[in-house]
């Protein structure tokens, strides 16, 4: 087995194990920390796919900002543990397992015919501008994908205003 496959398996196992741990933990803080484990493993997988820039951004934005926000909220609320467990739709829990099995079966059915097994070679000469480098992201984001980029700024502005209105109390 090649070195790449070993690396892939290691990171895939980390990703899946911490993803499962999200569900197994009762305390949301531990769930959030497990999700960070998945995010880091995914970032490593992005590197194996030559998406270095996205891998770095994954850590800066996801692990370094979004999850910090989650952990802040969990720490600020500090939900008492001994809450009565109200569960109105009991069936859902038992529906989840066959549903998951169905999805996995479907996935194997769909993935079976895919035969692509190697990444395309890096074009020689302009490795600086190959897919996945900062240069390729920059040049296409600000030309071909200009509209989504500009709309993003408006989305962020709306999120600032919305979150502020929702989270602040009157006279706070």
């Amino acid at each position, binding site marked *: 087995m090649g070195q790449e496959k070993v690396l892939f398996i290691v990171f895939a196992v980390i990703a899946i194990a911490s993803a499962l741990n999200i569900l197994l933990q009762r305390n949301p803080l531990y769930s959030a920390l497990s999700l960070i484990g998945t995010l880091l493993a995914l970032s490593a997988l992005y590197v194996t796919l030559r998406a270095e820039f996205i891998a770095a951004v994954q*850590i800066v934005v996801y692990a370094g900002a979004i999850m910090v926000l989650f952990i802040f909220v969990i720490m600020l609320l500090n939900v008492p543990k001994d809450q009565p467990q109200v569960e109105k739709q009991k069936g859902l829990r038992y529906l989840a397992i066959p549903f998951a099995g169905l999805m996995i079966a479907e996935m194997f059915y769909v993935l079976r015919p895919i035969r692509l097994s190697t990444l395309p070679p890096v074009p020689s000469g302009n490795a600086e501008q190959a897919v996945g480098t900062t240069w390729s992201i920059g040049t296409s984001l600000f030309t071909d994908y200009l509209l989504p980029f500009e709309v993003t700024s408006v989305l962020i502005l709306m999120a600032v205003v919305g979150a502020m209105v929702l989270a602040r109390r009157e006279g706070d």
Partner: protein
Amino acid sequence: MTNLLLEWVIKTIVILLILVTAVAYATLMERKVMAWIQMRVGPNRVGLGKFRLWGLMQPLADGLKMIFKEDIVPLQASHWLYIVAPALSLIPALMTFIVIPYGSQITLFDHTIELHVTRLNVGLLYVLALTSVGVYGIVLAGWSSNNKYSLMGGLRSSAQMISYELALGLSIVSVLLYTGTLDLVEIVEGQQGFHGLAWNIFHYPLLILVFIIFYIASLAETNRTPFDLPEADSELVAGYHTEYSSMKFVMFQMAEYLNLITASSISTTLFFGGWNGPFVGRLPLLGPVYFTVKVFVLIFLAMWIRYTVPRFRYDQLMRFGWKFLLPAAIVNIIISSTVILFMR
């Protein structure tokens, strides 16, 4: 491949050993500098046998003392997180240094050795990513101790770190506008001209302002005094590490000094030409020397500031970060990009 791997392993271990020693002596340097500024002598007793050696063995004695301190895990603490938190703070701090170039290349036994562990296309982003992950150690230490001072210190500290991380990131963007690359090796190589004195800060005068913003933000990022609010001892005892003792406490201290060294190295790389200096082209061994000298000048500056400037109040700190540094960094980006657009 195995050759390359061996070279990496050796380089990594050497770098780590140098870093750990540098951290140990940075603590001694801190106490000496503090002593000089306050017109005292500072630690000067611990030496080898009869020879006092100006207290040069002090870090060793401190280390031994800390190892044999009792390791306490408070009863109400979240046991696991309490133990893991210092490691989460130390590991990212140790990992940053591998992308920083400390020399060009030297030839040893017919074997050319590049004086950097590795070069990444996204080197600067790698550094930023590790900085942003460093928050977790502090926030989790504060939470898991189950102590009011720790929690408050951890929350305040992390809020401060993320606030100044913005100014840090945006000031780096101004540098990127001039260098056009995220690769730190390339950034240093771009400053080689004019007898090794074409440092970015001389070449582009606007970067002086950027450097000031960057330096202040990195001081705040490393939680050093004017910005050491999280451990303001008059209000929060020792902040997030109130409950920590023994080597766990040492790990937080190591992380703090490592971050200081890293921040100084990044400043050197981005603004002061990295390993560049006169005659470095003819004598590559001068590279690491220049680099070390520059880094230590910046560390000395940080210590000087620490013992000269009084501590901010928390509201002043947040106001300064958000209402002064952040807009200043943004204005700098606008000015720099306009200059580049109409340059030539």
